[in-house]
């Protein structure tokens, strides 16, 4: 039974990966651009590059990267390579491989996104739950509203404003970069502190905008649960408000939100494109943005797959963890 469940979930995971990889394979090819030529184009327009014989160059790279094969053949090779976890070379950063490019960026994005997503998840859910909880003090219930309004503030504007006032005018916080210019990452405490200080503004511009989303969904959930019989029952049983809030209310609402958390990790990467660019953090978002703009297919595939697999895996893991958290499912 359990084995069958695991097998089904794994199949699901495979299907997710397959469809994501198929989508990302075909979409960039809708345009008839040649990534190699675009690469030289970028060089040319940045200051006058004189590639000797562009067509010869382009042809020789096309051959090297297999871009001159028929599409279905490229697709086949692509799938085989994915199974082998080999995403090939970055067109833009040859001779670096896609894996190298991604691994170089992942730590920056992970540290930024994990912290911001988890923080906004916690703040947002608490505020959301409280705002739907009739017994919460009024000020707590009203504090949620400004955050809801902030969801509309684009992270880029948030970032630009924070930078301009806190960084440029008041000089409280650094104006960008992942750590102070000229430092060498040496794993020391001083370096760690320096790095964290550089993360405050990018983190803030992500958190302020994303708390509202959690408030909304948690609130919706909370309202539904308030009507449930077991909450009414608990109230009639005479349980204290705080106990009901914690044991009946939070616990039942947090479960579905946890799935949302897994999904959110996928979408915040998109916000990271803007925020990392603005703050000059060399993370996944920046790499992806550069890759899209330079038609670096392999890197685009690599990143979209990387994120999809991460999100899907987390969702599946959540499903396995559910029964541990929720007695109802455990008994089924």
């Amino acid at each position, binding site marked *: 039974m359990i084995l069958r469940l695991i097998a089904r979930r794994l199949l*699901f995971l495979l*299907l*997710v990966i397959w*469809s*994501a990889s198929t*989508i*990302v394979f075909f*979409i*960039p*090819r*809708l*345009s008839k651009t040649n990534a190699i030529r675009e690469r030289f184009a970028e060089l040319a327009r940045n200051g006058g590059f004189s590639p000797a014989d562009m067509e010869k160059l382009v042809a020789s790279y096309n051959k090297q990267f297999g871009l001159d094969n028929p599409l279905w053949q490229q697709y086949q090779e692509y799938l085989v390579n994915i199974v082998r976890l080999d995403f090939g070379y970055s067109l833009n950063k040859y001779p670096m491989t896609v894996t190298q490019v991604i691994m170089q960026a992942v730590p920056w994005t992970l540290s930024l996104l994990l912290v911001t997503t988890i923080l906004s998840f916690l703040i947002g859910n608490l505020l959301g739950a409280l705002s739907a909880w009739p017994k919460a003090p009024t000020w707590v219930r009203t504090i949620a509203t400004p955050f*809801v*309004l*902030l*969801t*509309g*503030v*684009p992270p*880029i*504007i948030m970032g*630009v*404003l924070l930078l*301009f006032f806190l960084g440029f005018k008041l000089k409280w916080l650094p104006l960008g970069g992942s750590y102070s210019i000229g430092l060498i990452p040496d794993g020391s405490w001083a370096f760690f502190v320096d790095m964290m200080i550089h993360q405050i503004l990018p983190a803030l511009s992500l958190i302020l905008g994303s708390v*509202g989303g959690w408030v*909304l969904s948690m*609130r*919706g959930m909370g*309202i*539904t649960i*308030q*009507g449930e019989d077991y909450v009414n029952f608990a109230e009639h049983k005479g349980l204290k408000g705080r106990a009901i809030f914690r044991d009946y209310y939070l616990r039942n609402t947090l479960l579905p939100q946890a799935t949302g958390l*897994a*999904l959110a990790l*996928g*979408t915040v*990467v*998109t916000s990271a*494109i*803007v925020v990392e660019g603005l703050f000059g953090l060399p993370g996944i978002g920046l790499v*992806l*943005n550069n890759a*899209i*703009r330079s038609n670096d297919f392999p890197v*685009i595939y690599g990143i*979209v797959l990387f*994120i*999809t697999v991460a*999100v*899907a895996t987390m*969702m599946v893991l959540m499903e396995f963890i559910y029964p541990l958290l929720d007695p109802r499912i455990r008994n089924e």
Partner: protein
Amino acid sequence: MADISLRIQRPGRLWLTWRYIKRNKSLAIGLAVMLFLIAFTAIGFMVINPKHAYPLSAAPRQAPGLKYILGTDFFGRDLYAAMVVGMWQTAAIGLVAGGLGTLIGVFLGFVSAYFGGWIDTIIKTVCQILTPIPVLLIQVVVAGSLDKRDVTIMVMALIIVSLGWMGTTLVVRSQVLTMKERQFVAVAKLSGVGSMGIIFKEIMPNLLPFIAAAFVVQVFQAVFASFYLAVLGLGPLREPLLGNIIWSAQGQGAFFNGWWWWPIEPAVAMVLILGSLALINMGLDELANPRVRKTE
């Protein structure tokens, strides 16, 4: 006689709605902001010349003042005109993408839940498989791969809708599934109402609040996505979409140069649009859930 019958009549529908809205603060504020935005755009269109939303139509880099209430940008756009046109375009994207997404979602959700069997399995599985794929990421890839001349307002809406219908489908499906089991549907079935009849006469009306909420979510996501694509410079560049205005302001270092009004105005508009949608959504949650519907 007529007088008496009038007196014992229930209060009118409008009056009830009004009373309800007064209790449901989120809905009220959300709708009020939305009405304000609609009025801004509608009145705006009567006042402005849409041509002034495009470059070289006004003196460049003017701060808000008497001549240009919202100022002008680096390229000589009258920002008042640009905001009016941009707001309308943003709304158009939201409504088209949101509407289409909701239609697809409701249709698939219904089909899936009502007919069940292998149809249900397929639709459900496809939705579940597509859900973990980061939609915005794919949209960015799509928009980045298209020929720029092909990216019009409507194409943007279609890009957004192409991967934006799964959520609604799943919500509608689960709601229809629970309703199928409810007594009123069973009664209707027993009394020989056809499946179309059951869908439209019995299930649909009960689903409306959910569909409305799903629609609002869809519009929200569509506006957000279109804005996002535009901010990344992936939208139709000449159009004064709110995201485009911010994108071009960013490109010319507007804050640093002290032209604060240029990026701030579209940002405020965006906050109002998305904020009001979020508030309406909060309000609809209460409406859709009669058990917690506030009583007077």
